[in-house]
């Protein structure tokens, strides 16, 4: 089922650690969430589903189709939709900022993980390696990938080397540690996907 919750578009800044009031230190990811503009509402009558489309950032030139979409709105760089139960309460042109969240809120963070290229089975599937010495040649080999004549083929889905990372990842149930409306920052406990400056979607869990 598609999660039905509003969120915001942000960018990953990096990680650090902050003190909580009780003196404990927690690792946080810093997410820059510039104020988002509501650019369009999706309704079941017209679109077959309900969602709020948000935009953030700037672009210098709009393509003709985008120009039509963003009539009367600033030239926004990035547009994304969040599925919601009901679009009432939102209107086009409305600004949503980091105040949407409060410390302690549970959120999901969606991003694109760092690409690892063509990776072996050790990095990709946590296989164990073979001996490094004593005549061994199977240092990082995957080992056996199945029996012989029976079944006479390799089972589908057998874990092997291949492309790793650079895929959409959702980290669920993270906690908001702090929000900073002045600097448009969101501090999230723990790690979030992607490299610095990577686009992130932060939505209520």
């Amino acid at each position: 089922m598609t999660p039905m919750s509003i969120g915001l578009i942000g960018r990953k800044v990096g990680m650090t650690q902050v003190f909580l009031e009780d003196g404990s230190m927690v690792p946080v990811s810093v997410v820059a969430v510039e104020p988002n503009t509501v650019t369009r509402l999706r309704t079941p009558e017209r679109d077959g589903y309900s969602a709020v489309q948000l935009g953030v950032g700037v672009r210098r030139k709009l393509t003709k189709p985008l120009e039509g979409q963003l009539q009367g709105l600033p030239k926004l760089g990035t547009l994304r939709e969040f599925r919601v139960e009901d679009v009432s309460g939102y209107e086009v042109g409305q600004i949503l900022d980091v105040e949407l969240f409060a410390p302690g809120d549970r959120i999901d963070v969606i991003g694109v993980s760092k690409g690892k290229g063509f990776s072996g089975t050790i990095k990709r599937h946590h296989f164990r390696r073979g001996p490094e010495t004593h005549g061994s040649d199977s240092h990082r080999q995957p080992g056996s990938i199945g029996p012989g004549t029976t079944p006479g083929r390799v089972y589908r889905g057998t874990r092997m080397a291949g492309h790793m990372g650079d895929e959409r990842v959702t980290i669920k149930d993270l906690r908001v540690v702090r929000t900073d409306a002045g600097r448009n920052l969101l501090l999230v406990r723990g790690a979030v996907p992607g490299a610095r400056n990577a686009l992130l979607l932060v939505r209520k869990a």
Partner: protein
Amino acid sequence: MNVIDQLDREQLRDDLPELAAGDTVRVAARVVEGNRERIQVFEGTVMRLHGGGPQRSITVRRIASGVGVERTFKVNSPRIDRIEVVRHGVARRAQLYFLRKRVGKAASLRERRPG
């Protein structure tokens, strides 16, 4: 300055004395017992400094009723009420782990003379 550095800088305390390995310090830490908060003072020798920025910590060693006790404090923590340097000791290395093997007078450090 980037945002991370800004956040880190905001967490630094500006009321801390200069600390060095070998100093004798008095650390007043706030401890919560049940629903009451009180201040606990721990006095001893700084065995090492660790980390930088908001994560900076010190390990303090003292002999309490015949037993060596080491405690680490995050220097910038809001749970630290204050830190005083009682005495500057002479230390020729950064980590004073050798103190663990020493007992009594051998475990003391000469005082640093100004100048």
